[in-house]
């Protein structure tokens, strides 16, 4: 596929609008279904279930009637330049692809030492504590053919649905195109979200929606101060949500806009959604 392949540099990333997220969990289910994530009969042990996309419930911590609750989807951040997990992997089983910005995981290379799990602050990496699918009972019939199921004892994580990128590139190649259009390659969670809270695209392409959204003052990243440089951005007009995106010492957090969420949300000013 070398000849005529798209060798351009892309930086695939995501912007998740927390204000639109309803906490329905469709992204979690779509991700698990698309990526052949192993499920057990009893998933109540939340310390060991595998959830590449995971929904956290956040609250502003105030008492009724001022309580506000929101939901925070957290995929793998696909940290840039120096991901904490890539530099510590013993067997070079995880790599940052500089052409796509995706942090990949090679399951057949992973020895399961779990150093990457210890290094990741987002808890985005999951270890296969059990063997995946029971071989009988026909559970293999719903597997996605493009995604390899993982064996016991290896680490896995969100891949930004890399197989969909391969699918889109193959399609483009057959149509004699070199560049992918926006929307041709989106992750399963992006596609599945009923509120369209997730926007996925090329952060380094100025025409893609994500590259515009990340410039909005309401957009922030999770744990930005630590220096992981995630490619997953979050967007919220609510101060308390943005404050939960990182750790701040007293007085360090500066509110972006001094308006209440309700005022902003129900505002009928034209161009409210755009920047």
């Amino acid at each position, binding site marked *: 596929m070398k000849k005529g392949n798209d060798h351009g540099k892309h930086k695939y990333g995501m912007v998740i609008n927390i204000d639109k997220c309803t906490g329905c969990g469709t992204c979690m289910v779509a991700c698990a279904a698309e990526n052949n994530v192993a499920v057990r009969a009893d998933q109540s042990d939340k310390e060991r279930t595998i959830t590449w996309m995971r929904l956290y419930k956040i609250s502003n911590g105030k008492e009724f009637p001022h309580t506000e609750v929101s939901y925070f989807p957290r995929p793998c951040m696909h940290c840039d330049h120096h991901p904490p997990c890539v530099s510590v992997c013993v067997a*070079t089983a995880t790599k940052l692809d500089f052409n796509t910005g995706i942090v990949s995981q*090679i399951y*057949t*290379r992973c020895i399961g030492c779990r150093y990457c799990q210890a290094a990741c602050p987002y808890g985005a990496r999951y270890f296969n504590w059990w063997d995946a699918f029971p071989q009988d009972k026909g559970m293999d019939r719903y597997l996605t053919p493009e995604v390899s199921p993982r064996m016991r004892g290896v680490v896995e994580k969100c891949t930004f649905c890399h197989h969909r990128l391969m699918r889109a590139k193959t399609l483009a190649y057959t149509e004699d195109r070199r560049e992918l259009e926006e929307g041709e390659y989106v992750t399963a969670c992006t596609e599945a979200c009923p509120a369209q809270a997730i926007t996925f695209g090329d952060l380094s392409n100025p025409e893609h929606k994500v590259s515009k959204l990340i410039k909005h003052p309401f957009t922030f990243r999770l744990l930005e101060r630590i220096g992981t440089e995630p490619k997953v951005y979050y967007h919220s007009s609510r101060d308390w949500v943005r404050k939960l995106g990182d750790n701040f010492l007293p007085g360090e957090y500066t509110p972006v806009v001094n308006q209440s969420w309700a005022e902003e949300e129900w505002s009928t000013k034209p161009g409210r959604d755009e920047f």
Partner: protein
Amino acid sequence: MTPFSFEWQWNIEYIIFFGLLYIALGIIGVGITFTVIKTGLQALGFMRERHF
């Protein structure tokens, strides 16, 4: 991934890391070889034994 895919890069970090490792392994290997040969020669009588 297979044993035949030997990963090597010509950069200073690789050279220092594996250089030091092979030096350490080399010292161990040479030491053992030297001892084995010396033992063999002494056992067969070609060399005198040194007693403490």
